């Protein structure tokens, strides 16, 4: 949690999502380190799930490849442990769907996440009303919970976020830029960023914008209003297209540097302390 707070204290934040296990768990750790080197403040380690209903085709394909390569919750926790050992300061969010956590047992999953150096959990198909058990288990182990808000969310949903924040650590809110799945091209980043600014005022927590952030311009647009931007599908595609580990790492670093530049154009960060 402290690492996430520190990231937002430094300035506008860049969050990078990776589907762990695509193409292998070891390479995912290396790619996460590439993201950190290129300027990502927070890494979302994606737990691949068989039925990713909130994801578009790119992340759905990556999830299938990752599961075939042995990916899943256990492998993602191993990746978290390795990344934490190598990068003591980066924020790590365990990102995924509910069933793998539920089947493992919420208490056990929260404990293992804490032991693996995870700062917070984000579960895309677990709305706040259904999340009480997991949030409390996470909080007991010092792990935060990241709620989502969407363009369709009205006042009662914002109220639910406030309730969650009163009950346990909520490091930031993830604002979904559009009604849609990940990898959309329809994102109006500036508009989403402006909405994120309103939401931050309403909930009193940092708000980042994700879904469809695939370029320097969109990262800048989102970060103008929001506290940060999240890139996922664009990175997953770069990994999918790369032929060899070196090419994949290079493509990921190049993309993250561009996104970083976009976020910094919105407001330069204070020098890391």
């Amino acid at each position, binding site marked *: 949690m402290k690492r996430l707070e520190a990231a937002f204290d430094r300035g506008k934040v860049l969050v990078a999502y990776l589907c762990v296990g695509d193409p292998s768990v070891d390479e995912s750790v290396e790619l996460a380190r590439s993201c950190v080197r290129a300027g990502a403040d927070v890494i979302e380690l994606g737990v691949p799930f068989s*039925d990713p209903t909130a994801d578009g085709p790119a992340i759905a394909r990556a999830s299938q490849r990752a599961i075939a390569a042995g990916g899943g919750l*256990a492998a993602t926790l191993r990746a978290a442990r390795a990344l934490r050992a190598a990068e003591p300061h980066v924020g790590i969010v365990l990102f995924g769907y509910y069933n793998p956590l539920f*089947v493992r047992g919420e208490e056990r999953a929260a404990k293992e996440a804490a032991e693996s150096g995870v700062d917070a959990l984000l579960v*895309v198909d677990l709305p706040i009303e*259904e999340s009480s058990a997991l949030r409390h288990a996470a909080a007991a182990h010092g792990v935060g919970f990241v709620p989502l808000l969407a363009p369709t969310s*009205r006042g009662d949903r914002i109220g639910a976020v406030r309730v969650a924040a009163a009950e346990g650590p909520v490091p930031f809110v993830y604002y979904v830029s559009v009604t849609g799945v990940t990898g959309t091209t329809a994102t109006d980043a500036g508009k989403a960023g402006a909405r994120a600014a309103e939401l931050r005022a309403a909930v009193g927590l940092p708000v980042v914008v994700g879904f469809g952030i695939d370029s320097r311009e969109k990262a800048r647009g989102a970060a103008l209003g929001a506290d940060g931007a999240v890139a996922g599908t664009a990175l997953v595609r770069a990994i999918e297209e790369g032929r060899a580990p070196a090419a994949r790492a290079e493509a990921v670093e190049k993309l993250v540097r561009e996104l970083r530049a976009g976020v910094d154009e919105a407001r330069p960060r204070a020098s890391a302390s």
Partner: protein
Amino acid sequence: MSKSPVGYYGPFGGRFVAETLIPALDELAEAFGTIVRGEAFQDEWRGLLARYVGRPTPLGEARRLARAIDPEGRALGKLWLKREDLCHTGAHKINNALGQVLLAKLMGKTRVIAETGAGQHGVATATACALFGLPCDVFMGSEDVKRQAPNVGRMKLLGARVIPVESGSRTLKDAMNEALRDWVTNVRTTYYCIGSAAGPHPYPELVATLQSVIGEEARQQVLDQQRALPDAVIACVGGGSNAIGIFRAFLPDAQVALVGVEAAGEGVQTTRHAATLGAGRVGVLHGSKSYVLCDDAGQIQEAHSISAGLDYPGVGPEHSWLKENGRARYLSATDDEALAAAALIARSEGIIPALESSHAIARIGDVARELAAARGSPVSVVLGLSGRGDKDLSTLLARLT
């Protein structure tokens, strides 16, 4: 029953979906309460059931099938068939589709989407959309598109667009994933018409409410004809809409055994089956907490059944609760048993059943023998014959002739 939060059946149900959809589910739950339970909706929907679907469907006695199952009549006294196969479009699915598409219209939605496995819910939704003048997109696994070709043709004739889904096992589960992705993208204008008593709250309750017309009729009809309640009600269970539809009216009748029959595919001891309640575990799939087929890592497993309508690794949450609280029992029948049952009813009663319904037929004898042994006299059984077998003709012909 123990008290549960709204949208739960005991510990099962809930709403496990992306945040974007929560307001739409709230809107639907409100419309369910104000519109569906209102007089105007009920008048129009029930009028359509009578004059368009052909309800009430008959409850007919199947004497020759009963004797084929139990030649000496020591266990199975009377066998009643609740003939949902005689509904317009050939299955019970139309009861729900007409209700939900009417609701979509009244909610001001301008487009309807649906998932389908066997194609019966797709055909029913396409039919309702044609009747109400709404555009309709149906997601269907490409494997099911192949094995249910007649229903694909019917949907197209009815003006719907059939979108083949190529991901995962290319069956019902994947069609539902894709429908959810479409809905989250077009949620403001689109109504998602779910075909089974599954999915996030309020869908399980909405679908069960619309399908409970089956059991309301069947209960009255069996009382009229044999002057007594049946000893058992049997229905097949995939997601479980026809089963919950016929069970609901009998839930308070504790002396009536309720039996659901799942698809055992090539055997529940193999990995190729769809016996979610019989061989699965509690998990979360497609928006609700219920029994699912998944591995130790929480990955959903592919189901298998010869019948596309039962080929699903989840089940509606109310069935999980009925299993857990003991009010219903869940058995299974293999592909081969279902095929044999289809042949048996075809030749003894002149009825070609859907392969889904054939699973329930396959267990009538076992259920009757067990109940008769316990009660000391032959029993009467009501079977939910959920649909007709026209769509399965190529499978039936390939496997039985």
